């Protein structure tokens, strides 16, 4: 079954269908649900010719980047598409995207005043929760966890939207007043659920702002510093998705130049905040104040 739109993707999950083809982040990829021949000994291999990832008790993934083909060998039939998609839309797609020269950063993004605004930071820093809070306020979700940036012919760097899903922790769901009944669990992440969001943006968006979130126990409430020059470049490099794949893929140079170019086109901020019941409201205020200043 060919699934070539985001709507059909969601439908596939609901119906537990295994799609043969998906278009994600603008790339059309063949999916083959079958055993992987000649499996490597190790759990992970990353070369310019292939990518292999074995997730224990779930599935193994083999990528042929020249054909944009992914072979997925599930441990058994109880592993449905939703579970497989956790790594498929993350590390596996990141390999393909980096192979093709896209800039892949770790973060979530929403659309504010026709520009992509990115929230980045370490795991657990609050990227998805912040995006979820902004979605609740009416800002369309562009991507969660994986930020994909493409350079257009005129040099403008744009964000390519991802699958319309947010992965949220149970306590974040409570904060946003959703309950977890009826939501699909995402394996291997304690109490994290996927819930579909309403929009299916497939256009490309210029990028306006990048916020790095840093949970902090000392700061009173929230602090925000705008970064300039080399510090901007450093933050973008630091928040790259699966940085360690770039060298084996011989993409370190392109990645470096992309981060440098992006740093000249956007505003970059470092936020420190105390994680409490007020932190989402504070971030939203801050982001909306910035929007007002820019407009």
């Amino acid at each position, binding site marked *: 079954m060919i699934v070539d739109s985001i709507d059909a993707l969601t439908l596939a999950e609901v119906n537990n269908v295994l799609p043969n083809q998906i278009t994600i982040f603008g790339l059309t990829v063949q999916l083959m649900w079958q055993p992987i021949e000649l499996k490597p000994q190790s759990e992970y291999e990353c070369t310019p010719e292939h990518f292999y990832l074995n997730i224990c008790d779930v599935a193994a993934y083999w990528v042929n980047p020249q054909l944009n083909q992914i072979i997925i060998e599930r441990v058994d039939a109880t592993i449905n598409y939703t579970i497989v998609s956790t790594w498929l839309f993350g590390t596996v797609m990141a390999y393909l995207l980096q192979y093709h020269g896209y800039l892949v950063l770790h973060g979530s993004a929403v659309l504010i005043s026709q520009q992509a605004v990115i929230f980045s930071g370490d795991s657990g820093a609050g990227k998805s929760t912040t995006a979820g809070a902004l979605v609740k306020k009416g800002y369309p979700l562009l991507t969660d966890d994986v930020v994909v940036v493409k350079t257009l012919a005129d040099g403008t760097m744009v964000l390519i939207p991802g699958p319309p899903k947010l992965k949220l922790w149970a306590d974040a769901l409570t904060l946003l007043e959703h309950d977890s009944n009826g939501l699909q669990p995402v394996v291997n992440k304690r109490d994290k659920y996927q819930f579909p969001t309403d929009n299916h943006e497939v256009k490309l968006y210029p990028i306006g702002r990048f916020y790095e979130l840093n949970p902090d126990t000392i700061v009173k409430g929230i602090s925000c510093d705008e970064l300039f020059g080399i510090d901007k470049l450093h933050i973008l490099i630091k928040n790259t998705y699966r940085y360690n794949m770039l060298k084996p893929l011989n993409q*370190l140079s392109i990645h470096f130049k992309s981060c*440098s170019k992006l*740093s*000249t086109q956007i505003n970059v901020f470092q936020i420190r905040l105390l994680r409490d019941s007020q932190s989402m409201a504070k971030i939203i205020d801050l982001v909306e104040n910035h929007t007002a200043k820019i407009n």
Partner: protein
Amino acid sequence: MLEINPTKKIQRIDKDVTETEVEGSVVLLHIENGQYYNFNKTGSDLWNGLAQPLSMNELVKLIVDKYSITTDDCQKDILVWLNDAFEHKLIQFVD
């Protein structure tokens, strides 16, 4: 501190390095060791000057001419920069 023959030509080791410019300063990525290097204004001038092989004396002259300062003012700093750049395998002597 390495003793540098001031008349011997020095060249960049370009093959392992990707460079970019951020607000007028040169930033390098050394692909082999994965390190990033950020040069200040003078360091950027020296790196850019080494687009063709130059000796230490010629580099000193370049800086002296550009900033209208004396040789004494900059020679020691240039020697330090060269030492660092040699150590990090960013430059080498021309054979």
